[in-house]
C-alpha cells in the first residue's frame, strides 16, 4: 500500500470514529463536557499540527549553523573569478 493510501486510510478511520462518537450513533451516553470537547476535535488537531509545523520551521531558522568565514571566503573567490573572466573577455 502506498503512503498516500495509508494516510487516507488512517484519516478515514479517525474521521468515522469521530463522526460515530459525535452524532451519538453508538448509543453511548457521554457527559456533556466530553461532548463539548469532542465536537471541535478535528479543527483542533489541524490547528495543533499547523502550530507544530510553524514552530519547527521557526526553531530550525533560529538554530541554523551559519559559517561566516566560509561565506566570506566564497564571496571573495567569486569576485576573483569574475575579475579573471572579465579580463579574459567574458561579458556578464
Amino acid at each position, binding site marked *: 500500500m502506498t503512503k498516500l493510501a495509508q494516510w487516507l486510510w488512517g484519516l478515514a478511520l479517525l474521521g468515522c470514529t469521530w463522526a460515530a462518537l459525535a452524532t451519538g450513533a453508538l448509543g453511548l451516553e457521554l457527559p*456533556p*463536557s*466530553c461532548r*463539548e*470537547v469532542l*465536537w*471541535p*476535535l478535528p*479543527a*483542533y488537531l*489541524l*490547528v*495543533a499540527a499547523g*502550530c*507544530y509545523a*510553524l*514552530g519547527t*520551521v*521557526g*526553531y*530550525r*531558522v*533560529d*538554530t*541554523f*549553523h*551559519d559559517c*561566516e568565514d566560509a561565506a566570506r571566503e566564497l564571496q571573495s573567490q567569486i569576485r576573483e573569478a569574475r575579475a579573471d573572466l572579465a579580463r579574459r573577455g567574458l561579458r556578464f
Partner: protein
Amino acid sequence: MATGTDQVVGLSLVAVSLIIFTYYTVWVILLPFIDSQHVIHKYFLPRAYAVAIPLAAGLLLLLFVGLFITCVMLKNQKATKKAQ
C-alpha cells in the same frame, strides 16, 4: 548559530506558534471542564468561533494560494506569447 534577523524571525515564529497553541488548547480542551461562573471565561469568545475562525483562515489561505498560482501561470503564458 544563526545571526541577526534570522534569530529574531525564528524566535518570533516559535513564540507565535506557542501562543496560538496554548490559547487554542485552553479554549477547546480545558474550558468545558471549568465551572461556567469562573472569571476565565471572560477572556474567550463563544465556542462556535473555535471552529469558525480556523475554517475561515483555512479558506483564506486556499484563496491566496489559488490567486498566487493563477498570477504565476498568467505571467508564464504572457512570457511564452511574447517569445513566439
